[in-house]
Each structure stands twice: as C-alpha cells, then as structure tokens.
C-alpha cells in the first residue's frame, strides 16, 4: 500500500468543498507571493535591455519591446566592475582566513583543550554579543583611526576575527565531535595544531561551509561600513562602489543603471540556485541566523 503523505489537511478534508476552495485560495496566495518575489528580480534584468525612454514610461512595461544588448556593454565600461569585484573577493578571503584561524582556533581550544579559567575566557568572548551595534559603531570608527588602519583592508580583516556568534556556532559544533578522537590523537603524539588541522577541521567542513556562506554574504552585501573605512576609490568593494556610483547618481540613465544592477545581481543568484540544496542545509546547520 502506498503511504499517503499528509500535512495539517488530510485527503479526506480536501474532498469537502469549503476546504477545497480555501485550499485553492491558499495556493493562489502563494502564487501571488512567488510572483511578487520573481517580478522585481526579472524586471532588473529586462529594464537593463530596454531603451531609457521605455524604462521611464508610464505605465511601465515588463518585457522589453526591443532588446538592446549594447546597454550591457555600456554598463561594463561605465565603472571598473572587475576591480571592485576583485576587492570584494579579496575582503572575503581575508575575512574567511581570520574566521578560520582566529575564531576556529579559539573555539577549538575552548571546546576540546584543557585550559584553566575556561569559563571566564568564554564570558570575555560572549559578553560582546550583548553590546548593541549602535553603541560601538562610532568608537569603533575612531578606534580604527587611532590604530592607523584607515583606508587599508586590515581595518575590515582584523575585526572579522571578533565574531562571538561564529565562535558560539563553531564551539557547539566541536563539542559534538567525539572527544576520544582527540585523546587517541594525543596519545599517538600528535601536536595540538595537528589535531586541529587533521581531525577537527576536516570533520567540521560543513560548519565552516556555513560560515563561508555568512562571511561571503556579508562581504558581498556590506556597503556602509567599507564606505566609511576606505576613502580610496580603488579599494571599494563592489557593494560600496555600486551604491556610490550607480544607485546614488541621478544623471545616469536608468536603463544603464539596471544593466549594472543585473550584472551584480545574477552571479550570487545563479550560484545560489545551483547550490541551493547545500546552502539551505548549511543555513539550517547554523541554526537561527542572527
């Protein structure tokens, strides 16, 4: 016999006309939701193909009446996209390195190594979660200035290691690894760094992948903080450059604007669509984000 998958509503309920109508209405609402999600994203792309007059026409059209691929060529030459994309990747790589080395080492030590005063040290890290960002955004800026890190990538890389949320995630993951593996490693004479790199790290690839998603999305998205820290235009990450040179510029033609926006939108969207199975699983591994 085939096992029938059921939810809150059973197949028996679905035979009743009232439930049928309500169920149909529910599906319609979901469909509307899906459309409101997809329409704006598709319209970014289509607007990039239209003539400027068509983008600004009222009522707006969805599909372009004529296709103008040359907009994308113009958009490509308007700002140095490869340079800014490279900066973003550069920032991501540094932040990821700091996350693995600083946060990874520390959480491994707290979780699987013998350290006196462990509790106190843990509080030292986790108490920072209770400080509201509004309180330290300005002193942090002044502090980075005092340290002479302004306009260098170090001002983004080094603070990336100070993330108590990631520390908590990693520690709880390490806590789940069988401690005997490390004990036997120690008996066999493995050094502690070796235990980290050859046992803990390979076993924790899923959680590091999850952190990589978080770190990537923050370096791809963050535009405000880099715009304060980096005053040299050639250091801007993509998001900051787009905000300053595209979104906030009035005299730029709207169709070119959308062509640029679609070029930055689609790489992450396509990567997400290809790897969505793993990414969604990874996000669940990270528990509740925030």
């Amino acid at each position, binding site marked *: 016999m085939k096992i029938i*998958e059921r*939810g*809150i*509503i*059973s197949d028996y309920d679905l035979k009743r006309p009232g*439930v049928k109508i309500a*169920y149909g209405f529910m599906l319609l609402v*979901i469909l509307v*939701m*899906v459309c*409101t*999600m*997809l329409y*704006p*994203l598709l*319209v*970014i792309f289509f607007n990039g193909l239209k003539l400027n007059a068509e983008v*600004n026409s009222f*009522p*707006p059209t969805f599909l372009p009446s004529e296709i103008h691929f040359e907009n994308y060529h113009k958009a490509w030459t308007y700002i140095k996209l490869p340079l800014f994309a490279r900066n973003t990747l550069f920032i991501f790589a540094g932040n990821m390195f700091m996350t693995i080395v600083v946060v990874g*080492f*520390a959480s491994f030590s707290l979780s699987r190594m*013998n350290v006196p005063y462990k509790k106190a040290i843990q509080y*030292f890290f986790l108490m920072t979660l209770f*400080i*509201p960002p*509004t309180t330290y*955004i*300005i*002193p*942090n*800026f*002044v*502090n980075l200035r005092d*340290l002479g890190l302004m306009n260098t990538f170090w001002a983004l890389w*080094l*603070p990336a*290691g100070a993330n*108590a949320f990631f520390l908590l995630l990693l520690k709880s993951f390490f806590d789940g690894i069988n401690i005997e593996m490390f004990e036997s490693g120690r008996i066999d004479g493995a*050094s*502690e760094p070796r235990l*980290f790199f050859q046992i803990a790290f390979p076993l924790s690839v899923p959680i590091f992948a999850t952190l990589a998603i978080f770190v990537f999305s923050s370096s791809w*998205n963050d*535009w*405000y903080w880099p715009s*304060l820290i980096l005053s040299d235009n050639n250091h801007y990450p*993509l*998001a900051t450059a787009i*905000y300053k040179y*595209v979104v906030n510029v009035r005299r730029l033609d709207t169709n070119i604007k959308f062509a640029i*926006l679609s070029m*930055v*939108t689609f790489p992450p*969207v396509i990567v*997400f669509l290809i790897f969505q199975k793993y990414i*969604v699983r990874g*996000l669940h591994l990270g528990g*509740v*984000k*925030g």
Partner: protein
Amino acid sequence: MNQTTAVPRLPLDSLPKRPPAKWKKYIWGYLFLLPAVAIFFTFLWMPIGKGIIFSFYHIDFVKGDSFVGWENYKRVFKDPEVMVSVKNTLYYMGLGIVIGFWVPILFAIAISEMRRLQGFARIAAYLPYVVPLVVLYGLWRWLYDPVGPINAVLSHIGFDTILFMTDKAWSMISIVIMETWQSFGSALLIYLAAILSIPRDWYEAAEIDGAGIWGRIRHITLPAIKTQVVLLFLLQLIATSQGFQTQYALLDGGPNNATLTYALLVVRYAFTRQDYGSASALGVLMFLVLGLLAVIQYRISNKEGA
C-alpha cells in the same frame, strides 16, 4: 607526597621536570586562544571602553581631544531630534511586527501544506535574500516611484497615486514593506523546518479525535513552533532597534526626519556634524536603556518561572 617506605623514588620524572610539563600542558590551549583574545580586546572591548570615555570628551582629530564633562549628555538631552528619533525607532519596531512578523509564519504553514512544487515556492521566497542590498535600493526606488510599477497597478485599480518615498505618512511603511519582502524568506526557512519536523500522525490522531483544520493549526502547529516564534520575535526587535542603513540609503532620514532612527541620528552626529563625543554619548545611552530592559525582562521571566 609523604613517603613511608625506606626506598626513595628515583628522581627520574620528579621535581625538576614537573613544572615545565604542566606548563607545556596548557601552553597550546592558551596559544590557540591568544589571537582571539587579542582581536576581541582590540576591536570590541577597547572601542566599547573608549566609547564611554569619548562620551565625556570633545573629539577633535586635528587639535586633540579635550575633557568636557557632562556637556555631551546635556547637548543630547536638549536636542529635539533625539526625541523624534526615539519615536521613529519605536514606530519602526512596531511596524516591523505589525507588517512583517506574521508573514513568514503564515507562508511557512501554507507552503508546508503544498503537495507539489514546495521546493520552488521556498526558493522563490528566499531569493531576494541573495540579492545584494544595494541592488534592492536601486530597484525599490524605481518600484516606489510616483510613475513606477506599483503606482501603475494602483491607478489601474482606481486608487490615487501614493508618494511612497516623499509622503511623511508612507515613508517608514514603505521601508518596512521593502525589508519584509527582502528578508522574510530566511525566517520562513526556519519556521518551515520546524513545521515539517512535526510528526504527521499527530495530525492524524487529532483529526480522528474530531479536531478541525483550524484546531489542528492552533493546538499542534503553533505550539510546535513556539520557541522559534519567540526567538525570532526577540531577534527582530533587537535588529530593528539598531536599524538605520535602509533609512539612510533610501531617504537619508527624510522626508522631514520621518525616517530618522536613533542609530541614524548617532551616525549623523558623528559623520555629518563631526561630533564624535555626542555620538558616543548617544551610544552609551542606548546601551544603558537596553541593559535596563534586559534586567527587567530577566526579573519578570524569573518571577514567572518561580
């Protein structure tokens, strides 16, 4: 160790070697912690401490800082914009709950009932979360335009044009709608995972006992996701109380300070007026208020628990 036997233990691994061995036992643990302690100290605790100190100083990058006592706090308390920003922040937090908070719960329940294409709906809902925020700012400026697509639909149905961005009554609502649209997918995934992990036979049993569909949702589904609801509620309140980037990017606090949130005012004090001392004072005040609320909340929940 007291030795009662006549034969003394040979000092093979005793005194001289012991202390280094013990020290060695812990050194790696501390070495592993050292970078994190240094980084957390330099980039979190030091700014936090400095913030308290700065709030009593006039910060001048050129001439050097000078002690001003309570001046910064007095200035902040006299500033009418502070009251406006507090009101706006509370309004923003409230709107976030009224407009946005229930949306992912509702859609999570609805999507969990889909028999087909569930994955598709889930991905579609999550998709805007993947798009860079700056792109969304550009996009929504166009969508909210007086001659943009939303107003085209409205005029088609027969409504008047709504000035989403420039009308004081609408600007904050527009921002909340945009943020809900952008981020409800991530909350939806959390709720959906919790709903799908409810054993199906609970519903079966409830149905046999005569519970209607609404009764099943009320007595099985909602209690099962209660922890997630409470947690995301708190996280949303915390996040919106700190929010300023969308308000800054889309409207720079306008029109007429209608979207000036507290955090945006802090940023404005620092980077527009170059008054880092007063900005730090505002930050300290925020910390005190939130700390007080946390203590009160802790007291209340403790009383309830007892």
